[in-house]
């Protein structure tokens, strides 16, 4: 793997769990309550009152640094993850996540054996698709969800999701995209934490992308502009860069001849390459010989990878993903500088992000999108993969994500899914989220390994109803609810907080009570 790490920066994260994390861990029985002081906020920032950006910062979420990191760098808290981050400390945990090959993930690998498409060659996938009811794309979508749910390489999954969305190839598509699993492994995952330069070139030679955006049928004498345009607008410099229609045309010309061989691998066909001078913004090429067409195209892509507009465009998207819907210009500038300084190295770029003040003070500024909510729900509840065939259970979960409008890899437009809250806040999605919470607390998705709901609080040995509620909210969201919201749950149980917790009286309500905790802002926000 390519690494272009910037020199190590002074650690801004401590190794000890904060008091809050300690409480959360105590509730899970993972660790005795820690007395260590706070980590990421050491830089003189008051996470609650401090407001360096002058924007609205109020949130009900616990500002604890460990919980914050978990909400952003993973698909949601699980007991195992909280234990892991706390034991290692945020910085060492992050180091490890940035080098996912150092993390044993054999459990999820074993699970993925149920999806043979993932281990198939492009040619095999083309054959496999013929007449199959379940396509390679379907397998990849289910496998992607499985990894988000249960992989220990959580940051890799988040970045895989980020790049898959950036280079969106709507999956499952028709036969043309049967090779998407190859792209997922050899392009997206391989380079997700490498360099953007490598990622962009690999993507531009990936049959799934070449077919999805039609470059495979673009010819010098009759070009297809689809890929050439989206390459500029979506994959690299962005529309703000101010390129012209003539630039779009030459962008398409530069990559004519880049196509797909009959065995579904990349093939450059000189006869299909346009020859003649090319100019796209500040890039130009004489492009006199068709035989040099691959070199010209690769040169063009490298130029785009290091264009300052690309650095800004990608940095805006990264900040939007990890920090807030409207990141500051300062943060975007800092990230763009880091991106260019590290020669498009993604690890160094992510370190800059996680070390930024703006990241540290952005607690609760993101809203979980529907897929993130669904995945985080399974993780919070500690629901495990099926012991037997995982295919039907995952198909059920994929269907639920599709009904919420956000199946993995499923965005219809080349733009990918929006990474801001507004498009995902609707009456329809609100009801959909709530119904999924209820389905999972009532064990309605068949085959999954469900925990005993009463067991979620058992480690804290709650004596009163109030303690039960605190134990559950801490286990599921990492924190105790604000008193008025806590009182809502007490009233839902039609009792008083000081009343003795008698399992026989309360446990029948646990599926609904726990669903409500997952409906709440403490789970919705991240």
């Amino acid at each position: 793997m390519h690494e272009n790490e910037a020199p190590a920066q002074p650690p801004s994260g401590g190794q000890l769990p904060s008091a809050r994390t300690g409480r959360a861990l105590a509730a899970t029985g993972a660790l005795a309550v820690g007395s260590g002081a706070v980590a990421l906020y050491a830089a003189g920032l008051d996470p609650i009152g401090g407001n360096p950006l002058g924007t609205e910062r109020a949130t009900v979420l616990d500002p604890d640094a460990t919980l914050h990191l978990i909400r952003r760098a993973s698909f949601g808290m699980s007991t195992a993850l909280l234990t892991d981050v706390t034991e290692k400390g945020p910085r060492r945990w992050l180091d490890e996540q940035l080098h996912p090959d150092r993390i044993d993930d054999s459990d999820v690998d074993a699970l993925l054996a149920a999806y043979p498409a993932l281990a198939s060659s492009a040619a095999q996938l083309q054959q496999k698709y013929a007449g199959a009811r379940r396509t390679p794309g379907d397998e990849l979508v289910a496998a992607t969800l499985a990894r988000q749910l249960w992989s220990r390489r959580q940051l890799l999954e988040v970045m895989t999701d980020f790049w898959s969305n950036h280079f969106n190839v709507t999956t499952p598509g028709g036969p043309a995209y049967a090779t998407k699993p190859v792209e997922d492994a050899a392009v997206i995952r391989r380079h997700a934490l490498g360099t953007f330069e490598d990622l962009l070139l690999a993507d531009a030679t990936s049959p799934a992308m070449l077919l999805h955006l039609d470059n495979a049928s673009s010819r010098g004498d009759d070009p297809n502009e689809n890929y050439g345009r989206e390459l500029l607008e979506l994959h690299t410099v962005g529309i703000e860069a101010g390129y012209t229609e003539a630039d779009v045309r030459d962008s398409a010309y530069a990559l004519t001849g880049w196509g797909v061989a009959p065995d579904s691998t990349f093939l450059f066909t000189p006869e299909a390459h346009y020859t003649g001078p090319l100019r796209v913004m500040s890039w130009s090429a004489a492009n006199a010989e068709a035989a040099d067409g691959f070199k010209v195209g690769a040169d063009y892509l490298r130029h785009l990878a290091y264009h300052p507009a690309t650095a800004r465009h990608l940095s805006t998207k990264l900040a939007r993903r990890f920090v807030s819907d409207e990141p500051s210009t300062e943060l975007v500038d800092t990230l763009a500088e880091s991106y260019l300084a590290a020669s498009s190295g993604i690890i160094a770029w992510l370190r800059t992000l996680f070390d930024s003040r703006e990241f540290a003070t952005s607690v609760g500024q993101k809203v979980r999108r529907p897929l993130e909510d669904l995945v985080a729900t399974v993780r919070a509840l500690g629901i495990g993969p099926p012991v037997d065939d995982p295919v039907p259970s995952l198909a059920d979960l994929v269907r639920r994500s599709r009904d919420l409008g956000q199946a993995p890899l499923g965005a219809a437009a080349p733009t990918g899914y929006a990474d801001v809250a507004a498009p995902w806040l609707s009456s329809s999605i609100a009801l959909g989220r709530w119904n999924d919470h209820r389905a999972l607390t009532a064990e309605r998705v068949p085959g999954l390994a469900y925990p005993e709901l009463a067991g979620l609080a058992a480690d804290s040995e709650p004596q009163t109803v109030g303690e039960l509620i605190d134990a559950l909210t801490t286990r599921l969201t990492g924190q105790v609810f604000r008193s008025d919201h806590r009182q809502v749950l007490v009233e839902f149980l039609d009792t008083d907080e000081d009343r003795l917790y008698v399992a026989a009286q309360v446990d029948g309500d646990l599926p609904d009570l726990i669903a409500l905790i997952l409906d709440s802002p403490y789970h919705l926000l991240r």
Partner: protein
Amino acid sequence: MNLAERALVTAAERVAADAERRTELWSRGFTRRRFLAGAGMVGAAALGSQLVTTRYSYAAPGTGTGRALVVVFLRGGFDGLAAVVPAGDPDYLTARPSIGVPAEVLLPLDRRFGLHPALGGLHGFWTSGQLGIVHAVGGGPGVTRSHFQAMDHVERGVDTPSTRTGWLERALEAAGPGTTFRSVSEGTSLPSSLAGLGTAVALRGVDLVTLNRGSERMTTALRGLFSGLDHVAADQVDLALTVLSEAQALRATPYVPVKGVSYPAGNFGSAMSDVARLVKADVGLRVATVDVGGWDLHSNAGPIEDGDMTYHLTGLGNTLAAFGTDLGERLADVTVVTMSEFGRRVAENGSGGTDHGGGNAMLLLGGRVAGGLVHGGWPGLATEALVDGDVPGVNDYRNVLAELARAQLGIGSVASVFPGHSYVPLGVVR
């Protein structure tokens, strides 16, 4: 009080509480709208006119309150030149040698145009004067060949990027208060055209507006968990619970289209069937939006017999036809308009498809439409008439939408709906 009286009182209290909650919801939207105004929103004169007044505004004949506008957005860039074919133009088949639709299979419209045979289901509405067309529709330089940028422009309906509200939301604002179901998006989320107050409802059909184990105790707790939270998510919780409560009565009667009508299978068919259901239920629907994807046909659009374009047009035409027939007399109150972010290049590309282009066609279906006519200017396909290989958008989409909004929503001035645009009606409404 006897039991019956007590039940009545309870019901009355419930209705009052619902109304109060809705008022609160709308007034909070109003607060946030002031925030939007700070962010560049225009037409703030009507502030405060949004408070809801009636639970359901039952359609009173002749008052126009039962009128609705249904906006069907064809995502990806609709090929108006494939749907409404300039058959008489000698340059047409020259530009599209492999995917052009030959004159002999077209259904006759006027001397210039013919209808793609896959849209045959709609031809009867043309002859009966309920289907009108505007061709060569564009939106000025702000509507580029970028999906994202063009959609953003035509759904907000303004040139200024700082205006964050959608054109339909501003049209509704100009129309005044309404019911919970005043504006409905058939789908998981809201389109940008309805961005603004956060009072528009998204649903995937009335039948799916349910909450498992959703007792009153449960919904009370749900509200409580978001109380005191100054966040847009909290507004959606209120809205979802209000919709849930009000959809109960609607769901009770399964929807059956009129005899002989069956909507094509798939999302678009069920969405339009649900719109018909809402219209007939008289719940105060004024605006509905429906999305249909799949139009970005850069490759393999043909052949005419069974190609991708034919497949998509068949679904579009048959669904709109089913909707028109299903509504029957109520089609007098309802207008459907199709729109897209941009049209396609006149010349086909090397992949048997077309790239992103300019001027496009809009279809208008409804009893109040000046049907049987292709409205507006038509520049033709001669090389010198084209701009960058595109049909120039000589008819501004805002003129079409403004005229429909006036007719369907009873708006006087459309200045606040399309600020900065000087409205010139094309005469698409009778």
